[in-house]
């Protein structure tokens, strides 16, 4: 074995020396043989001739010897590669088309893989034994349905830790958005509040200082120490080493910096990388002091590492027993049914949320898009297979000749596969480039910034691209190889350069139909998503989004008297409204898709139980409210300065609410009451257009609006929340508003500002994403299908030159020729459209839930796609068809 290898390697690397030796050896033999004949009396020349005859063909023997040396594997490969490379270079157009096609296909898949991998498979960085680390979920029956929760109480975490034996480590973590710094410097940042045991889950070492220990994480209030995230250390401290021992205001307390986490360390989270890590007891202890005794404040997530040798089932059983015991312990505090009644149990599931019971819609959409990307790749493969096949058919004579000359079929197939592999590898390189530069937008949609790392440095993505490339080379090489195997040597050689009649290849037809059908499918998908996106976009939310800035004041643990708070709120509105470029400002208590206030169903005299009509949401604002957010009044009047505490209580209600409560009467002038029976009735003074603040689709929402002054009089104090309407895009005014309003905030209290769109846009994201991806991939598939059709028709024309020459010579008109050639292409197109549409009709049911107010069977979309594909097919067919008319019968007939 060893000699064999050494021999082969030597043969491989010292080829020139080996060749020389072989030459010497054979020459020696022939010389000795010649000498022999000379001794027998022959002339030198005759002796040499006889010696050569006795020896046999020197070149063939050299070949055989080389083969038997066992280097043929490398030799033939490099020979094939050089042969393939020459072939590809001689046809740059063909090669570019194939490489681009494969590059796009592979690139799309590689980019998508990076995302799917991150969301579903890849464990968090630095995690030790990721297959044994779990996120703990608890489940129980509540109001007739099973509830699964990952947000637990501190007490529960303690119980599940001390009453289980299946785990060698448990940890608690709560990822929060907390203010870091004070005054002008204060910014809300993601902060990980974690138990001291959490760091033990990772093999991460601090780049500076140390991590905190379980001893610093203690009840009731942990040590005020902070480990900086690598990013914050760089951005705020410039990566300086003297940061240790510095004080940093995190949350509601001053913390001492004790260490810096390594780059890429985030703990376990799907959200933004934390700027800092603090003990979980330090965070909770600054909020209240009872969190470690009570069972009714759930705010943290629990992670556990299973002991080696303990099965997941055993761990689940163990956890469930502990959870039931903990549930019984809770019953000493809260009135609850027994653990058995609620069927309490607990689960150790994968740490990735997308793989747990609470997986969001993102993973579903990503899976869909991955499927679409695979289809695009298949279409690309079909295309390339078709092109290669066409080439193989063109090279029929060459192949037949080589077979006749004794090249084995195996060798021939090897050569064809080498060619497709070379193409696939070039395509793979192009694909990586596509994924690297074109995939950034994609990753930004789904991943947090730190995860959107370069494709080219990620081993898993590269490996995936490699695997895809290999598959592609087999898929595309198979058809031509099979074709080569089937060919009949004598037949092909006899046929000459032309074949008497044009033969349809079933494989080629099949590939073409496949491409056409799937392009139609993707384009219909694209059409549906585009329509659904435009539905979302054109949906009137009932308020303006683009120009609105939302500013939220945070007291950060400071206490204000009611008067102080209300005065501060008023001052914030005044300052905001006085800011240049701001048209008006209002206080607000509800923020669409963020935090909405509900105070139960109102009471209306003479109307029974409004509750069963639906949910009623409450908004309160300054007199400038409607003007600021752009909600139109349908009838009646809005609030004025006169609607204050002490004046007659008034309310504006939404149109749907008015119709639901007073279907036959005018709602204006009617009265309603909220809260306790002692509250005064409010008179309805206006009807506002409907708004959507909770869900973008579904039932109409019921909203009613109070003047902020009367709201405060009834419910205490206002939040320090302000909507400001900018004369332009909100994004341009966020920072100036934040700075000006921050200046008004006393002590450590602070404001944060964001465009309202930041809350609304995520609701439209899945539609946006679906539309973008389907349009991109559908367009790609269409281009590929057009190239495929074009190449096949062009090839057919080339094949039939002779036949066409005969026809034209016999008097066929140019129209006849065009009709004949184009007719064939368009038949393919129509068949592809039909098949694709049928699949789309069937597949529509799966995609409809992802669409917004859009039926999957939309005739407009189906017809447009059919027309589009038909037109593209026509263009792809026309050029070769026109070329067919230029066939010169005399030339065509004389050739060959």
């Amino acid at each position: 074995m060893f000699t064999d290898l050494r021999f082969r390697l030597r043969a491989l690397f010292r080829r020139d020396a080996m060749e020389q030796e072989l030459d010497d050896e054979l020459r020696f033999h022939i010389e000795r043989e010649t000498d022999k004949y000379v001794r027998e009396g022959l002339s030198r020349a005759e002796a040499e001739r006889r010696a050569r005859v006795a020896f046999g063909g020197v070149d063939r023997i050299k070949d055989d010897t080389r083969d038997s040396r066992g280097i043929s594997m490398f030799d033939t490969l490099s020979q094939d590669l050089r042969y393939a490379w020459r072939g590809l270079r001689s046809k740059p157009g063909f090669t570019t088309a194939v490489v681009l096609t494969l590059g796009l296909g592979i690139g799309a898949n590689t980019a998508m893989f990076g995302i799917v991998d991150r969301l579903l498979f890849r464990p968090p960085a630095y995690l030790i034994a990721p297959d044994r680390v779990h996120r703990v979920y608890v489940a129980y029956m509540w109001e007739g349905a099973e509830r699964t929760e990952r947000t637990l109480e501190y007490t529960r975490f303690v119980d599940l830790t001390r009453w289980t034996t299946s785990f060698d480590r448990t940890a608690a973590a709560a990822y929060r958005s907390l203010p870091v710094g004070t005054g002008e410097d204060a910014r809300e940042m993601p902060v990980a509040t974690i138990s001291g045991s959490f760091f033990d889950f990772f093999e991460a070492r601090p780049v500076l200082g140390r991590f905190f220990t379980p001893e610093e994480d203690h009840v009731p209030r942990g040590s005020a120490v902070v480990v900086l995230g690598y990013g914050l250390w760089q951005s705020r401290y410039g990566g300086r080493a003297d940061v240790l021992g510095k004080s940093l205001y995190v949350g509601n307390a001053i913390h001492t910096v004790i260490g810096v986490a390594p780059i890429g360390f985030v703990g376990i989270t799907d959200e933004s990388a934390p700027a800092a890590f603090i003990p979980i007891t330090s965070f909770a202890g600054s909020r209240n002091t009872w969190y470690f005794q009570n069972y009714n404040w759930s705010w943290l997530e629990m992670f556990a590492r299973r002991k080696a040798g303990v099965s997941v089932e055993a761990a689940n059983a163990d956890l469930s027993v502990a959870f039931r015991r903990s549930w019984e312990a809770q019953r000493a505090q809260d009135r609850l049914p027994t653990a058995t009644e609620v069927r309490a149990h607990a689960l150790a599931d994968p740490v990735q949320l997308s793989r747990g019971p609470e997986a969001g819609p993102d993973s579903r959409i990503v899976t869909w898009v991955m499927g679409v990307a695979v289809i695009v790749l298949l279409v690309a493969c079909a295309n390339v297979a078709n092109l290669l096949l066409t080439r193989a058919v063109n090279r029929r004579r060459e192949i037949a000749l080589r077979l006749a000359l004794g090249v084995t079929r195996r060798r021939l197939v090897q050569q064809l596969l080498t060619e497709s592999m070379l193409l696939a590898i070039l395509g793979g390189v192009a694909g990586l480039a596509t994924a690297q530069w074109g995939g950034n937008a994609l990753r930004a949609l789904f991943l947090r910034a730190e995860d959107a790392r370069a494709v080219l440095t990620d081993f898993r993505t590269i490996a995936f691209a490699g695997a895809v490339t290999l598959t592609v080379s087999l898929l595309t090489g198979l058809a031509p190889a099979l074709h080569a195997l089937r060919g009949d040597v004598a037949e092909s050689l006899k046929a000459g350069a032309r074949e008497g009649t044009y033969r349809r290849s079933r494989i080629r037809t099949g590939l073409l139909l496949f491409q056409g059908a799937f392009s139609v499918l993707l384009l219909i998908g694209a059409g549906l998503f585009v329509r659904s996106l435009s539905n979302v976009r054109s949906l009137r939310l009932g308020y303006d989004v683009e120009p609105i800035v939302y500013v939220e004041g945070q007291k950060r643990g400071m206490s204000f008297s009611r008067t102080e708070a209300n005065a501060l709120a008023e001052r914030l509105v005044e300052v905001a409204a006085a800011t240049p470029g701001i048209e008006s400002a209002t206080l607000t208590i509800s923020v669409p898709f963020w935090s909405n206030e509900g105070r139960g169903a109102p009471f209306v005299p003479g109307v029974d139980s409004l509750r069963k009509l639906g949910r009623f949401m409450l908004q309160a604002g300054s007199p400038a409210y409607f003007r600021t957010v752009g909600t139109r009044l349908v009838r009646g009047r809005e609030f004025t300065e006169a609607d204050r505490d002490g004046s007659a209580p008034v309310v504006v209600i939404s149109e749907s609410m008015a119709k639901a409560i007073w279907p036959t009467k005018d709602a204006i002038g009617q009265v309603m009451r909220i809260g306790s029976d002692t509250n005064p009735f409010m008179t309805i003074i206006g009807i506002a257009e409907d708004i959507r603040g909770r869900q973008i689709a579904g039932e109409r929402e019921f909203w009613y609006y109070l003047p902020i002054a009367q709201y405060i009089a009834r419910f205490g104090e206002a939040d320090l929340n302000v909507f400001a309407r900018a004369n332009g895009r909100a994004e341009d005014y966020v920072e100036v508003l934040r700075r000006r309003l921050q200046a008004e905030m006393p002590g450590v209290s602070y404001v944060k500002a964001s465009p309202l769109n930041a809350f609304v846009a995520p609701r439209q994201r899945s539609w946006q994403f679906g539309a973008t991806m389907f349009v991109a991939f559908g367009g790609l598939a269409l281009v590929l299908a057009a190239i495929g059709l074009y190449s096949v028709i062009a090839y057919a024309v080339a094949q039939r030159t002779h036949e066409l020459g005969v026809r034209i010579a016999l008097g066929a008109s140019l129209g006849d020729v065009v009709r004949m050639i184009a007719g064939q292409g368009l038949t393919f197109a129509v068949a592809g459209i039909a098949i694709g549409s049928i699949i789309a009709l069937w597949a529509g049911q799966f995609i409809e839930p992802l669409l917004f107010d859009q039926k999957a069977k939309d005739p407009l979309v189906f017809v447009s796609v059919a027309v589009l594909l038909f037109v593209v097919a026509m263009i792809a067919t026309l050029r070769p068809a026109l070329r067919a008319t230029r066939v010169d019968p005399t030339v065509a007939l004389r050739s060959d």
Partner: protein
Amino acid sequence: MTDRLDLPQGTLDLLILKALSLGPQHGWAISERLHLVSRATLQIPQGSLYPALHRLERQGWIRAEWGASDNNRRAKYYELTRAGQKQLEAETAAWDKLTTAVALVLKMA
């Protein structure tokens, strides 16, 4: 030419090993020896020797060394290795068994 035989498949290796069991030789000498010893009965194209020699060398049954030939020219000498010796014994035994068996069947009355 009717008294010359084509070599049965696979026996060339055996003959080469046997020829080398008498001592190191270069290719031409092996060819001559086989020619003489078989009394010119075996039809071995001289060139076909070399692929076989290189194959045997790769398999580790013989090894090669460049040396000076009797008329003082550089020649490549082959010699049997220990593994080659064993292989020769095994193949000889197998050959004997085969020919005996074939002979028995052919003599069947």
